Each structure stands twice: as C-alpha cells, then as structure tokens.
C-alpha cells in the first residue's frame, strides 16, 4: 500500500497541470470537477496513509532507489502519524478552500484553482518527505504558489505590499535553508535525513554542523512565523483572499514547525546536547506568544487580528516542540490540529463578513453584524474554541503541553501560555461582541488605524459556504474529545522522537515494533490543566470587557497606564513597519544571534 504515498502529492499537481493545460478549451464545470477531484483524491489518500501509519511508518523510495548496505542514495517519503496527519490537514483545508471558493472567488482570475492545487501538493510533499533537498524544493513550491495567491488582487496597494514582503522574506529564508543543506552535504555527502544523521554521529559536532543546523532551523522558523521572523506574515495574510488565508494559517505555518521537529529528531538528536536547543526554542516560543498577543489586541482589521492570534499559537506550538519530550510534542500536534481547524473556520467566517458587509474593520463594522446572527455565532464559537476552555477546542493540546512543561520542571511556561491565549481569544471575542452585538465604544484610540481599503465587490453568497464553515468550526471544537486521539498522539510522538528506530527503518528497512492497538477513550485531564483552562477563560472575558469598555476606567488609572505601558507598546508597533528592508534586517539579526548562542553552547 506504500504506492498510495506519492499519490497524495501527485494527484493535486496533475490536476493543476490539467487545469492550466485545458484553459480556454474545457468548459468551466469540467475544470471545477477536475480541481475538486484532484484535491479530494489526495485527501482520501492521506486518510488511508494516516490509518496505515498508525501501526508503523509507511516508506516509499522513488524510482525504486532503495538503500543498499545501509547507504541511502534515493529520495524517500516517510509517513509517520504526524507527517501523514499534517498532510491530511493541509489537503483537507485546501479542499475546503476550493469548495468555499467555488462561489466566493467565482470571478477570480484563471490560475487561482491551479495555484491552490499546486500548493496542496507541495504542502503534502513537505510533510511527507524524508530528504533535505526534496524538502527545499517543496518549500519553494509552497512559497511560489503562496506569493501568487497572496497577491491575487494585485491591482491594489495592500495585496501588493503583502505579496512583495512575503516573496522577498520567504526567499531569503529559502537561501538560508539551502546554504545549510549545502554545508551538510559537503560534510556528509548525503541528503537523506537518516543518512545525514548516521554520518554525523560518527564524528563530534563542530562549528560547521552548528552553522548548518542554525541556518536550517532559522529558515524554517521564518516560514513558521516565529519572532523575529514573523513580520511579513501579518502583511500577507491580512490581504490574501479569505480561503487562502485559511490554508496559510491552518497549515502552511505549522509545516515549518513540523520540519523543525523532524530535522532535529531524524538527524541531529544524537549529535547535539538537548539543553541549549531547548532553551533557545522555548525562549523564542515564549517571546513569540507575548509579542503576538499584544499585537493581536491592538488590531482592528479582523484578518490581521486573526494572523497575530495564529502567530501566538505558533509560539505555543514551538514551545511544545522545543521542550524536546514526547508529551509536549503530542500536545503541539494536537494544537496544530484543533487550532488549524478553528483558525481556518475563523478566516472563512471573515470572508463571509466581508462578503455581506463589504468591510473588515472592527470599528467601522460596529453593530452592523446584528443582521447576521448565524455568522456571528460561528465567529464567537470558533473564538471560544481558541480559549482552551476545558474539553473544548485547543484544550487537549494545551493540557498535554502543560504536562510536558511540568515534567520538564519549567513551571513558568504554563501561566505565560495561559495569558497569551486569554489575550488573543479575548480580542477575538471583543471584535465579535462589537461587530455582531454593537457593544463597546465606537472609537478606540488604542487600536492601530488602518488605511481605508476597497473591498472587492462580490455578490455571491451561497448557503453552502456557511455550511462548510460550520463543519470546519464544529470539527475544531470537537478536536479535544475525539475518543482515542490523546493516546494515539502520545504513541505517535514516542515513535517520532525515537531516532534509532527511524534510522533503522529508513536505512536498513528494519521492521518497527508495531504500536499496540489502543483503546478509544478520552482520558481525564490533570487538575492543573483544568485550572489553567479555567484561568484562560476568566482572562478572556476580562480582556474582552477591557477592550470594549476601557474608556469607563477612571482617568487617573488610564493616564498612569498610558505613561507606563505606552512607550514599549509604541516601540513594538514601530517594529511592524511594513517595510521589507527592515524585515530582512530582523531575519539576518535573528539568525546571527541564534547562531552565536548555539556556536558557544552546542560544541
């Protein structure tokens, strides 16, 4: 059944080629059918691969170039439950976006569907590949399709800025990755992850390997929206069409984090000591959570708000990866799933808002959403899912993260995560209350003014779009109580971090010990996790209320707050300058700092 593996990538790419090839020839309905068929086939393949990978990793060597004598020359796809699950999430969200776009982007320029399909194939390839250079090619293909999608309405200033900043920053991230790959190839003569790890383990790590590792990781973090590499994401996501944003936020960012985890455990785990890597990744994750939470609160553009909330969640996922233990990794994977679905749902809702009300600005939309109760309920339900209310939405992932951080002895991590979640979810609820209930002030000097934006006129509004959005949100909300998911993700994480078993499976085709069948149940969360969930809920309500009614606070309190918190917040705002040169400087500086820290601690 391993032949299904490449089909998850090939089907959408073939469909994209067919779409472009049959342009001007085939009727519209035929092309829509091809697009949905290609995307749907790949999604079904991902489901099959995921089911198969539950017991042991699925392996495919392209062109039959299997390793001989423990030396891998060919290109491999390796599907473990996390890789296959990520491919499924990416494929499923793209399929959703295609179906949603059927009416939403009816008047879209021609290559729209083909670009989405190319991006789907590339994302699945990225999630499944076991080869570094192959990863780079998928990375660039995701990028190229994504730039074109972000700048889809390129006749306007906003999308142009977003697409330009995206293309340039992401390309520089790609160069860093490529230089890292070249250095590793020069040292080991190998491109397969397991093979590189095997060669590296024979020698002690020197500075060259540290530099290569740094470049690889920072390039991936640039894709994954981690501070200080996150700046371009906010520009690009805020202006792309809503279904495209759903794919960006729900799957593309998380792919970078998945590969950080993969490259560490498949290749570098035996070479480097864990503590320096743990410190750097956890600190980056924490800074990301806090910066993004503050920036999220300051936004009034609905989509830009959602992006910063995604970036905060990416920080939480990075801490899950960076704690370097299986429980936290399982938590990170569960956050990826539940957050991906909920955030995609929120972006789809924002598309519906733009469609009906012709605007995406929280203050200008105040009270205008009263006529749209169903859309309002969907927005608020998805926002509540992101709070971490016990047994709802992202709760399971964050509960596992709490367990992992607790067992690693890092007890300050959970309160910070709770605060970040509370601020982001509170901001989303504030926007929901203002738009759909008309609560709160009509003016708010705290929020960043955004230029008036002409929202493209569209008349399409199909109940099907509402139904699709509802299903995505409902799946996201239920992700914490899927029977058996917690045990399965923990088992998958234990297999993911087992470097020796991965190398044996890939290089010597050794049979892994199959994971035993696990019961379908929902284990009880620890009291600490429930307490943090409750804390996040209280905080969310407080933040939402503060956002709506902070003008009613006494004048003295407001003046004091402005004097103390004002300057750092303004500084943070000015960093998000929208100028691509600044962004590149941050990427270079961030890479240099991380590299310097690792150069002294990893050797």
């Amino acid at each position: 059944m391993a032949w299904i593996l490449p089909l998850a990538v090939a089907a959408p790419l073939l469909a994209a080629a067919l779409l472009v090839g049959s342009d001007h020839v085939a009727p519209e309905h035929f092309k829509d059918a091809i697009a949905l068929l290609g995307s749907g086939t790949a999604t079904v393949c991902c489901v099959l691969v995921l089911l198969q990978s539950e017991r042991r990793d699925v392996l495919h060597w392209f062109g039959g170039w299997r390793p001989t004598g423990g030396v891998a020359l060919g290109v491999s796809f390796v599907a473990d439950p996390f890789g296959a699950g990520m491919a499924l999430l990416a494929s499923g969200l793209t399929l959703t976006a295609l179906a949603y776009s059927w009416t939403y982007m009816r008047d879209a320029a021609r290559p729209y569907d083909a670009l989405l399909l190319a991006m789907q194939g590339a994302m699945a390839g990225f999630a499944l590949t076991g080869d570094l250079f192959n990863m780079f090619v998928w990375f660039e293909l995701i990028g190229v399709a994504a730039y074109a999608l972000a700048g889809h309405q390129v006749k306007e200033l906003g999308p142009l800025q977003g697409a330009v900043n995206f293309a340039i920053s992401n390309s520089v991230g790609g160069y860093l990755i490529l230089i890292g790959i070249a250095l590793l190839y020069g040292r080991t003569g190998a491109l397969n992850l397991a093979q590189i790890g095997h060669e590296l383990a024979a020698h002690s790590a020197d500075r060259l390997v540290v530099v290569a590792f740094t470049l690889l990781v920072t390039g991936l973090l640039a894709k994954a929206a981690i501070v200080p590499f996150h700046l371009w994401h906010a520009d690009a996501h805020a202006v792309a069409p809503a279904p495209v944003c759903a794919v960006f936020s729900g799957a593309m960012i998380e792919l970078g984090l998945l590969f950080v985890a993969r490259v560490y455990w498949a290749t570098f785990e035996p070479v480097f000591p864990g503590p320096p890597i743990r410190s750097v990744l956890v600190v980056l994750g924490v800074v990301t959570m806090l910066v993004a939470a503050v920036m999220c609160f300051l936004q009034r553009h609905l989509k830009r708000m959602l992006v910063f909330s995604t970036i905060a969640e990416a920080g939480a996922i990075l801490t899950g990866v960076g704690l370097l233990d299986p429980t936290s990794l399982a938590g990170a994977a569960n956050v990826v799933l539940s957050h991906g679905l909920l955030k995609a749902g929120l972006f789809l809702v924002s598309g519906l808002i733009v469609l009906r009300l012709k605007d995406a600005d929280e203050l200008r939309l105040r009270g205008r959403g009263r006529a749209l109760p169903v859309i309002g309920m969907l927005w608020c339900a998805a926002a509540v899912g992101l709070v971490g209310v016990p047994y709802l939405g992202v709760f399971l992932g964050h509960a596992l993260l709490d367990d992992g951080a607790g067992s690693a002895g890092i007890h300050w991590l959970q309160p910070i995560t709770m605060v970040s979640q509370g601020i982001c979810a509170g901001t989303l609820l504030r926007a929901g209350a203002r738009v759909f209930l008309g609560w709160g002030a009509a003016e708010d000097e705290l929020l960043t003014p955004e230029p008036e934006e002409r929202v493209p006129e569209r008349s399409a509004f199909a109940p099907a779009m509402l139904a699709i959005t509802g299903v995505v949100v409902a799946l996201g909300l239920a992700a914490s109580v899927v029977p058996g998911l917690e045990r399965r993700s923990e088992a998958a994480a234990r297999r993911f971090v087992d470097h020796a078993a991965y190398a044996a499976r890939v290089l010597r085709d050794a049979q892994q010990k199959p994971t035993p069948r696990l019961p379908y149940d929902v284990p009880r969360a620890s009291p600490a996790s429930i307490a943090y969930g409750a804390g996040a809920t209280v905080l969310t309500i407080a933040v939402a209320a503060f956002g709506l009614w902070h003008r009613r606070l006494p004048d003295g309190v407001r003046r004091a707050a402005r004097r103390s918190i004002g300057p750092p917040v303004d500084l943070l705002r000015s960093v998000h300058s929208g100028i691509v040169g600044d962004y590149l400087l941050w990427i270079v500086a961030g890479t240099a700092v991380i590299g310097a820290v690792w150069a002294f601690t990893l050797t």
Partner: protein
Amino acid sequence: MSVLAYGVAAWIFCVGIYGAIISRNLIHLAVCLSVAQSSTYILLLAIGYRNHATAPIFKGFENRTKAVDPVVQALTLTDIVVSVTVIALILALALDAHEAANTVDPDELVGMRG
C-alpha cells in the same frame, strides 16, 4: 578547491542581502536577491569540486575516471530554476506596483503597519 571559493560565496551572499536590505527599488531588489542566491551556486559547486577531475559524464570513459560530484550540479540546476521563478514573480509584482501606485519603491508601498 581552495578556501577562496567559500570566501567568495560568503562575500556574495552578504553583498546581496545588504543590497536587498537598503534597496529602494523593486527591480534593484530582485537583482540583489539573484546576487544573494548566486552565492549558493558557488557554494554548491565548490563543495562538489575535485582537483584534476573531469565532468561527470562517463560515456566513452573508463569507469574509474575521477569526476566532480554530479549531485551538487543537479542541485544547482534545480536551484537556478527555483530562482528564475521567484525573480519572475517579483518582477511581475514590480510591474503591478508601477501600474497601481506609480512607484517601484517598496517603502512607498506600505499600506498596513503596526
């Protein structure tokens, strides 16, 4: 190959990125990015280079002929294709920017900030 090639690669990369950071013109910026990316070609080729070796074409040669590493040459070719795609896209965006905002200065394209 000596250390020189690696030094040249590092130098070209830094020059390209520096140019991209200070650039006030999208077309200039695209060229700077190509300069930065061409450092990766030099790096890759330098890694695969062997002294006194031939091109990796074995038809008509003794199979033991010393040749340079063909893998990095394949990587470089792929890299060039990737680079062309990205540069083409950025140039297309520059054209659109000129049409929509009558400027190719990335600093003047700023609509959203903060």
